[in-house]
């Protein structure tokens, strides 16, 4: 299910927000990540609401600063507010975001029940982003960040991150 959040009319604002990335996944824009929840533009004044992926996501403070800086450089005054509801889920990642994750070498979230089977029952259903094989095993339920798990492909032998389903 893909949720269209809102449409940003101003191409400059839109473009600028697409250029701000999640510092932990530099290839992914915060717009693709689905963490920008609301943008209100009033002349040169912008109010932006963002939501964390995980409660303890250490990147949120940096992201708020990056958004402010990027838009201020374009001549806007910006307020960034952190909101918790509705809670972010991995469904908020856009299709182009999922594509970028795969290209970057991070396997994208499976549906919730399949995700649990891959992480807790050892089923080989996560697709290797390098060679597309499903012959993959979990190495660690938690990876370099809370949102990812570490997997290994038994065909091409490459390790890779899997973005866990959060719902």
């Amino acid at each position: 299910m893909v949720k269209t959040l809102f449409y940003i009319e101003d191409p400059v604002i839109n473009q600028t927000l697409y250029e701000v990335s999640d510092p932990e996944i530099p290839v992914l824009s915060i717009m693709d990540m689905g963490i920008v929840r609301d943008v209100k533009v009033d002349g040169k004044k912008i109010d932006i609401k963002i939501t964390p992926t995980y409660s303890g996501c250490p990147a949120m403070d940096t992201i708020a600063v990056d958004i402010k800086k990027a838009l201020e450089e374009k001549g806007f005054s910006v307020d960034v507010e952190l909101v918790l509801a509705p809670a972010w889920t991995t469904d908020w990642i856009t299709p182009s975001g999922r594509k970028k994750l795969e290209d970057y070498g991070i396997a994208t979230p499976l549906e919730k029940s399949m995700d649990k089977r891959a992480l807790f029952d050892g089923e080989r259903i996560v697709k290797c982003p390098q060679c597309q094989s499903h012959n993959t095993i979990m190495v660690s339920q938690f990876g370099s960040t809370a949102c990812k798990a570490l997997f290994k492909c038994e065909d091409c032998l490459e390790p890779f991150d899997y973005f866990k389903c959060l719902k």
Partner: protein
Amino acid sequence: MSNQKLYQYLLLLGDNSLILGHRLSELCGHGPSLETDIALTNMSLDLYGQVRSYFQYAAKIKGDNSTEDSVAFLRTEREYHNSILVEQENKDFAHVIVRQFFFDVYHNLLLDKLKSSKDEIIAAIAHKSIKESDYHLRFSSQWVRRLGGGTVISHEKTQAAVTHLYPFIHELVSPIPIEKEMQELGIGINPDDLRDEYFNQVQEVLNEVNLEYAELKERFARGKTGIHTEQLGYILGELQYMQRAYPNMQW
């Protein structure tokens, strides 16, 4: 309802995550394997994130220049309301896992109910947090099964942890007055309502791998009212050191 009561209730909700988060953070670089080290510290981070949400809200209610940091760091020992269970030390990996499992079962049941709190912010925090604690419970319950059903030694160590920690779990589901009041207002939960389901879930896993537990006698709920074991003193010594030595210092 007075703001003072809501503030107290937020401390009660947040302090378990704060103190358990701290215990888990002590394992950073000391986990028994890289996998578990990363898992436990990530869980610590989740708990800290949840605490920030509770304490930002608490600070706003309290006013007079309170911040999430002052709420977290500048209270005295008797003003912390975490349960005795979560302050128990990381004796060995079995203790870490059993403590986590006992807490996670309770935490999930609690958050599931708090999702329908009439207080919008508490409900939002619960919606957010349960997605995370669901992973924690899967992790810890799987490890209890693995250790309890593992070798003779892993079973022995896990049994020792269960024997030590099981008496503390009664407190989690024994209400104190503020919890009853908050339930009557539709804001909080009376943990007595979680009791049957809690013991069912805990005992099911323990039974599965033949871990024994003593029948519980009624015990005083003390940590939630601010009466702690000596363990908390050591935690606060470390937790508060920077803010006490260098007041108002910032990261």
